[in-house]
């Protein structure tokens, strides 16, 4: 916790050497405000993680370190199957949504048919639709066509809202590439498919990977869509957390929450650092946030 809060303070001297400081230019209250902000953002999360290691049931006093609640979590067969279900959902969603989203991005940037505009709007709307709308309409679709609610229906719902994230991230990357290199490959005698596979895709990999891992994390954490499209069992972890919370706060939820946090962080960390590990200069954060802008 403290390492997080200390960061803003550490910046001041660094910047002073980079540019001559102007006192009126750097109001002190902003720095204090930023400190408080980060504290406010991370304190609840830190508490969840801390109390997941508490040896007693108390949610107020930390009475010693133990793995009791993780033990409870992993020794419960139904919670274990929920964890596996959540990972399955996220993995399948990641693979399918990343494939479809990447193709859609390529089509949107390179194709100029009269459908492109409509496809573009249809791709953007899920990003700004409240999840409950997507959840309700997915539930209605599945019940109307008589599809039994199960992991499959959850996955179908997750893929639908994940495609747009992938498309936006990959499209930003694609737009910055420009068609010149592809044209050069075509001039040198490559077929369209060869050009895509050997020229375009290698350039897109960092964005595709980052988008895929982002989708994994989003799907793994998703509650609302899963809540509306889940069957009886196994239910994904967030749905289990929801039912458990309604019966009151128990420390096992802290353990589940902390464990989910660890998995999400792993996915996001990979998304941020894989491009660099693959020998790219840009960071994953740049790829993810890069061109999205306003």
């Amino acid at each position, binding site marked *: 916790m403290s390492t997080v809060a200390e960061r803003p303070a550490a910046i001041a001297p660094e910047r002073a050497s980079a540019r001559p400081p102007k006192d009126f230019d750097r109001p002190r209250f902003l720095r204090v405000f930023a400190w408080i902000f980060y504290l406010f*953002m991370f304190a609840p999360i830190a508490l*969840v993680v801390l109390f997941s290691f508490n040896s007693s049931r108390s949610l*107020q006093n930390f009475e010693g370190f133990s793995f009791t609640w993780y033990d409870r979590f992993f020794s419960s067969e139904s919670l274990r199957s929920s964890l596996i279900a959540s990972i399955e959902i996220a993995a399948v969603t990641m693979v399918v949504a990343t494939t479809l989203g990447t193709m859609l991005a390529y089509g949107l940037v390179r194709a100029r048919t009269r459908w492109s505009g409509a*496809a573009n709007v249809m791709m953007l709307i899920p990003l700004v*639709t409240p999840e409950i709308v997507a959840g309700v309409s997915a539930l209605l679709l599945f019940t109307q066509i008589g599809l039994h609610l199960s992991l499959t229906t959850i996955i179908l*719902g997750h893929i639908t809202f994940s495609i747009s994230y992938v498309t936006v991230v990959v499209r930003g990357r694609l737009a910055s590439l420009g068609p010149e290199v592809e044209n050069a490959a075509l001039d040198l005698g490559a077929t369209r498919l060869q050009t895509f596979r050997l020229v375009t895709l290698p350039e897109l990999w960092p964005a595709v990977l980052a988008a895929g891992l982002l989708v994994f994390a989003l799907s793994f954490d998703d509650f609302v869509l899963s809540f509306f499209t889940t069957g009886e069992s196994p239910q994904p972890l967030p749905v289990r957390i929801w039912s458990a919370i309604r019966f009151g706060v128990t420390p096992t939820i802290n353990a589940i929450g902390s464990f989910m946090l660890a998995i999400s962080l792993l996915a996001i960390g990979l998304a941020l650092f894989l491009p660099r590990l693959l020998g790219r200069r840009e960071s994953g954060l740049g790829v993810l946030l890069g061109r999205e*802008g306003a």
Partner: protein
Amino acid sequence: MGSRLDPGEGGVSEQRFASGFLFPGAVWLLLFFLVPLGILLAISFGTTDDLGNSLYGWHPENYRDAFDPLFAPVLLRSVGYALATVVLCLAIGYPIAYYIARFGGRRKNVLIALVVLPFFVNYLVRTYAWVAILGDEGIFNGAMNTDIRFLNTPYAVIGGLVYGYLAFMILPIYAALDRMDPSLIEAGKDLYGSRWHTFRHVTFPHTFQGVLAGAVLVFLPAVGDFVSAQLLGGPDEYMVGNLIQQQFFAAENWPFGAALTTLMMLFLLIFMVMYLRSAAKASREAMA
């Protein structure tokens, strides 16, 4: 096809090739996103049989019921809470975005990553952490030895929404500030603008697109939220999302739930269109 021999012919074949890529994703979104919205609309005019199954039909009274004195306050409350959330997110988010963009130095990326990071902790877990902190016998009241009632108040629900969606406000404002040429601010000050005047006449107008984007991106999910009101509030704080959720899982009145959802979507559509148009404009400007 002919591109290998004659690059001039490539246009047609490139179009066909690229359109082929467009197809699967577009069809998927059509089938699993647009068609369900159509079904939603159809069912919202339906009714239920004695067993609670949905039947199609023409029952516009579902929409009239939504404005019944019993439910209308819930709709108004949702908009009110969401607006309050937007205002608070702006008041907190703008200074933070400003701080990171102007004074973040080489750690800008780290600071922005730290803003995004909590977003990847499950929303339920984050909200429920506040229950543990603010509960009647929670950490705060225990540590301070006080007896303050935080939960089951509008403040708690709005606070939960702010905590949940703040990142959506900070990111677009940060992007706008980061794009802005800092010498503009210096110029404003060189021209003897006070700090406040420089902000009002130079910085804020330059980042207004970002503010607008952030406001919409917070408003949309906040209106539809039901987790915050359920966990941090009580029936007196319920929002339209809670009402919809009840129709599907407790009251088993799906047509009424569908009507509520459709109404919410129609209301939010105005803001979506506004946002998408301004985003399209921004991306055209960025390309140019």
